[in-house]
């Protein structure tokens, strides 16, 4: 209908012979009016229902927080094309951005947004906190990191490493921001290898004080969020040296600034300077010059030092002790994984909406140009990413639940799942945003359009709280350990979703039909097959190295390629499983039907991974069938594209001008205003 209408209009224009007055040419070109996708696209399912499924929890809380942001001048509201958009002014200096980030936090604090974040307990509080982080992250990465450092790292360390007197002393003041915390773990010389840090703490039993010292330049604390400007207190990680014995890495509380913001004696602080993104966060460097802190400042849930200087710990094994110390980082990792999914949503919602309004090239002369999303190639670029975002969204919801329902027994699962999902979601995020940027063409390069700028802001995700490559290696090592343990238990796998290893190896039909390819059982089989085969191969290769007398470390290091493939296979399969489970909660209907297509598109995109051909899990014919089915699914999902991105539940104000009336947003009258 649209085409017919446009065509008639163009023909009419040609037929009307009286030449238009000159001013007409200047005022508007009829062919390029913006046509809102809301009026041409149909919603085949209830978008608010899909949003509830995707967000999973605390929808009202999210909406209130969105409203708090949109209604305040502090969040830099700007009108483009008649709509309000909120986003920080990234053209501000680093100093100004940091100042604004802090003002926004103060505003949220006054509105009670952080109420119960430290003093409250239980699943509900933690889930609500995750929801708030997701919303704030949609506004700006800096504000969520600044809050994350204070609440999850500083606050989390007090909660997890501290004992009652630490909780009583610090948690309420943390929640009310009477103190501002930071987290000094990373050093110039040591990042992922925390056990190698060089800061040293000794104990003086005469005064009952610990003495923290930075012995050399490579021991300076580095990248400490909040340290350069605002933080008053920090958690310090250091080697605890008691009576000449190094007891390993321990955490203490140290004050670094007074209430007026003056740096404390024996503390030196320098700025990390301007960064490629996240300039609203004041990352700093800290040197400790024999700083004395009271004995009570040792966070002593795992180990303590008696007043007379004796080291006491219930956990004798230093490896286990160290693992206990790192567990609070899990919350941060969960946050990063979830946030990466929401950033992908922003990028894709913008790119899809733009592709539904931007035209390029006509198929025939005098025909209207074709909408970008009506090109199969453009569908192929964006729609598999849409499916991936849906899948990761369910994965993220599962991860959050796993975390808030944690038990001592589930620690290992949480560690493995959070590590692999963090790596997968953040890597995917960068890949998705890059594709979306390109799909928006030149418009993607404008900071106000968000999609390009998100790359710089979120690049850090693959590094902080665990380098992605190292996390993935840890996943493979954990799977190796599971395999060895299962062999000891008569080959029975339990946990991490590896139970499929106990069953016979799935067989892929030699001729894959469309029906089979869309069947979730087949999809699951194909994903399990790859995981299983890669795990077998990895174990075999590592065992071979061990048999040759090589060390375990060396064996893992030399088999890094298989380790990477295996980590990915585990992650894809685990995420797929959460998709299937989410789908199973729905009653039959259009929502479930559309979601089923999305699931198939996700699964088949995973099957396009090069490992399937490299190791021969799929025949060349079957790989071709998979590829063909993907294009079919893309064209079938094209009519649902708007509904599927609207279901992300991101308010218009958090997208960007090119997602809406970009012609009016760029009109001359908008320049004059």
């Amino acid at each position, binding site marked *: 209908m*649209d085409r017919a*209408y*446009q065509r008639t*209009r163009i023909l009419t224009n040609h037929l009307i012979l009286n030449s238009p007055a000159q001013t007409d040419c200047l005022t508007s070109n*009829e062919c390029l*009016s*913006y*046509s*809102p996708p*809301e*009026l*041409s696209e149909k919603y085949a399912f*209830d978008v608010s229902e899909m949003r509830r499924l995707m967000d999973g929890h605390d929808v*009202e*809380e999210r*909406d*209130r927080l*969105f*409203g*708090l942001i*949109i*209604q*305040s001048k502090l969040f830099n509201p700007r009108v483009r*094309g*008649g*709509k309000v958009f909120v986003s920080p002014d990234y053209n501000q200096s680093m100093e100004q951005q940091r100042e604004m980030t802090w003002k926004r936090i103060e505003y949220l604090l*006054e*509105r*009670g947004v952080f109420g119960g974040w430290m003093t409250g307990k239980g699943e509900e509080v933690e889930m609500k906190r995750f929801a708030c982080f997701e919303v704030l992250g949609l506004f700006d990465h800096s504000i969520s990191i600044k809050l994350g450092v204070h609440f999850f790292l500083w606050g989390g360390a007090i909660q997890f490493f501290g004992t009652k007197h630490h909780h009583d002393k610090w948690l309420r003041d943390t929640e009310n921001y009477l103190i501002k915390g930071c987290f000094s773990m990373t050093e110039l010389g040591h990042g992922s290898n925390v056990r190698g840090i060089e800061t040293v703490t000794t104990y003086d039993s005469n005064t009952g004080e610990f003495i923290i010292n930075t012995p050399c330049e490579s021991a300076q604390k580095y990248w400490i969020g909040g340290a350069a400007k605002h933080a008053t207190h920090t958690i310090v990680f250091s080697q605890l040296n008691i009576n000449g014995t190094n007891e390993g890495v321990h955490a203490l509380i140290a004050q670094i600034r007074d209430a007026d913001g003056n740096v404390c004696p024996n503390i030196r602080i320098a700025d990390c300077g301007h960064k490629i993104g996240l300039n609203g966060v004041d990352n700093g460097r800290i040197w400790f010059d024999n700083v004395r802190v009271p004995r009570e400042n040792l966070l002593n849930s795992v180990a303590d030092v008696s007043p007379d200087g004796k080291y006491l710990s219930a956990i004798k094994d230093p490896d286990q002790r160290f693992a206990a110390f790192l567990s609070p980082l899990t919350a941060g990792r969960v946050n990063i994984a979830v946030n990466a999914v929401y950033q992908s949503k922003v990028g894709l919602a913008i790119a899809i909406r733009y592709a539904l309004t931007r035209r390029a090239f006509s198929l025939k002369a005098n025909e209207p140009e074709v909408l970008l999303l009506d090109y199969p190639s453009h569908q192929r670029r964006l729609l598999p990413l849409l499916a991936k975002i849906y899948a990761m969204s369910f994965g993220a919801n599962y991860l959050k639940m796993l975390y808030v329902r944690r038990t001592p027994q589930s620690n290992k699962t949480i560690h493995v799942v959070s590590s692999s999902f963090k790596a997968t979601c953040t890597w995917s995020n960068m890949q998705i945003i890059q594709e979306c940027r390109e799909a928006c063409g030149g418009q993607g390069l404008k900071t106000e359009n968000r999609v390009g700028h998100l790359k710089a802001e979120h690049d850090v995700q693959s590094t902080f709280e665990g380098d992605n490559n190292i996390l993935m290696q840890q996943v493979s090592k954990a799977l190796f350990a599971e395999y060895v343990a299962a062999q000891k238990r008569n080959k029975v796998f339990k946990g991490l979703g590896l139970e499929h290893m106990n069953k016979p190896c799935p067989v892929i039909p030699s001729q894959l039909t469309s029906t089979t390819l869309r069947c979730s059982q087949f999809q699951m089989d194909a994903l399990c097959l790859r995981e299983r085969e890669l795990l077998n191969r990895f174990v075999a290769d590592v065992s071979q190295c061990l048999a040759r007398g090589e060390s375990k470390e060396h064996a893992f290091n030399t088999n890094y390629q298989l380790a990477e493939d295996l980590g990915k296979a585990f992650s894809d399969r685990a995420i797929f499983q959460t998709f299937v489970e989410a789908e199973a909660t729905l009653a039959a209907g259009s929502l479930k039907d559309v979601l089923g297509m999305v699931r198939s598109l996700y699964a088949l995109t995973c099957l396009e991974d090069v490992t399937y051909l490299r190791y021969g899990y799929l025949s060349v014919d079957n790989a071709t069938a998979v590829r063909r089915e993907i294009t079919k699914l893309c064209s079938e999902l094209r009519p649902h594209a708007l509904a599927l991105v609207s279901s992300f539940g991101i*308010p*218009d*104000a958090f997208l960007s001008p090119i997602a*809406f*009336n970009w012609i*009016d947003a760029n*009109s001359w*009258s908008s320049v004059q205003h």
Partner: protein
Amino acid sequence: MASSQHEQVLVEEKSFARILTLNRTKQLNALSFQMDDPNVKLIILKGKGRSFCAGGDVAAVVHDIRAGGWRAGANFFMKEFTLNYLMATYSKPQVSILNGIVMGGGNGASMHGRFRVATENSLFAMPETALGLFPDVGASYFLSRLPGFFGEYLGLTGARLDGVEMLACGLATHFVPSAKLPMLEAALCAVDSSDPAIISSIIGQYSERPSLKEQSVYNRLDVIDRCFSQKTVEEILSALEREAVDRREGWISTTIQTLKKASPTSLKISLRSIRVGRLQGVGPCLVREYRMVCHVMRGEFSKDFFEGCRAILLDKDKNPKWEPSKLELITDTTVDSYFSKVKNEDWEDLKLPARPKFNLPPYVIAKL
């Protein structure tokens, strides 16, 4: 004159404009459906008598429901909301001259238009929570877009605004002294353009920028923001009570009293509606409000609408007995249910009429 005295809307056909005059002075120009959109450059909408439009004829709706069941009421609202949507998405600018009372449905007929002209006689209110209803006719769209949390304040309390306040908060786009209205009208009838910039500058020639009265609530936006940004109605009330201790200002205690007199169910669903509406386009707002109003009329969870109409409009004892009677008796789940589809065989969501896909003015596109 294309219309007789008996008709509810008088239509005057000028060369480029159509003037619609809402004519049922007795029922304070209650809305009806004979207002159609003539195909011209611009629409002027005004009232006759001392009001612009005091809203839908609620008493008649209640009467219809009593006689014909909730469907009759649903039918009324379906037509009204559809009209609201047409006005919000109409391709020609609408100038509403609000020289008098403009309440409820009257706001639905004017606030979605491009230009709203207030005068010294204007009196605005969305008083639905006192009636056991909620701010409808797309109010969750236009109230939620006022500065800060002023929309929550107006929607929950039903507070009245004068013309100057309407201009200050953005409900009105212009303020023209009533003495100049005949000249304004004549000038508008001579405009051969639908360009909002041109129309705006013409209205601008007759406009003034009077200053707010010192005691105007709009000067207390900081307090309103602090209180009405709270998460729940209960928390809004306690925030107001804290402010009342600190600053002993009359309007705060009036606000508390008004909230305590309003239907608790209405307050809760209204707050949620405004918060959700802030994140939706005008179409989805009306679809959602239609769901809500159907639930209200079915009376599954509360019959406050009927009780409110009895107490305020029919018996006029001004003493409604709300049920549930207290805020804390209304759970989130109950509030949720007002936003769900109506579980009734042949019930359907509000179907928004199709709009032209091309050449809608940008101010319309921005609302979708």
